[in-house]
């Protein structure tokens, strides 16, 4: 059973890709909305960053899981 933690770490890294999809979705939808109504875009940049941060946090969690599997288990 040696080395299975490395496989687990690799599997956990899939979560980073999923977070990338999420962040791209947030930013893309923001851009689509901003191009429709550019005058309202500036007031929503804070919301954009909060949305990106929440989407990204879950990817960072999976990164953390893989780090734990690599170094702590």
């Amino acid at each position, binding site marked *: 059973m040696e080395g299975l933690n490395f496989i687990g770490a690799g599997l956990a890294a899939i979560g980073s890709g999923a977070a990338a999809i999420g962040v791209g979705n947030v930013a893309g939808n923001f851009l689509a909305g901003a191009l429709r109504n550019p005058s309202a875009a500036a007031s929503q940049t804070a919301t954009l960053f*909060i949305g990106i941060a929440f989407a990204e946090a879950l990817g960072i969690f999976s990164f953390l899981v893989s780090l734990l599997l690599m170094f702590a288990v």
Partner: protein
Amino acid sequence: MATETHGAEPVAESGGLVFHPMDQFIVKPLFGHGEVGMFTITNVTLWLFLAIVAVVLMMVLGTSKRAIVPSRSQSVAELAYGFVYKMVEDVTGKDGLKYFPYIMTLFMFIVFANFLGLLPMSFTTTSHFAVTVVLALAVFLTVTILGFVKNGASFLGLFWVSSAPLALRPVLALIELISYFVRPVSHSIRLAGNVMAGHAVIKVFAGFAAIAAISPISVLAITAMYGLEVLVAFIQAYVFTILTCVYLKDALHPHH
């Protein structure tokens, strides 16, 4: 992880990775080679101190002349002040401005710690969970205590979504409660994880630079990643601060 010592790997035959990418995060005593105890002065201590010195230099010395036509350092300090002030005002509202000094301190400290960590051979303090967890727990405790002091028991209305159907409310209350207590976890891990991941990726590419065939690509990749890291260093400080503002707004106005 931090106190583990890698780096004893021999030079690979084809060149390549001769150091571990996580070696840069090892906490070492600044003087001598003893154990790292509770009060040992380590490289973390040094770089945390340097971040504070940099903030003081910019904000105190930069604005000390109070010139009407600002000098370069004064305009940077004014820009930073105005940026955070507007952020607090936009997100928290007028009554949140009372807590502006704390948020300004957080923002300046994290920005400078992140940027100092980008200097070659420096130590990135914000890549350590020990540092960011303290910052995030301070925010969490402040906001929770403030919520109860300001609103009393009605602060618990934060968890009771009154716009939802009655049958759903207990379920939503449970979810809201869990998400409230996950806040300090995600708040701290987001900052440390982003900074650590970026620095580790740069080191991985630096390892490839020793292989002659792919070294130009590696140097290009390091340059690109470094540019991204400069952006991330600022954006993560911004995100940390703006989430603090959001939590503060929840504490001051707990009703949905």
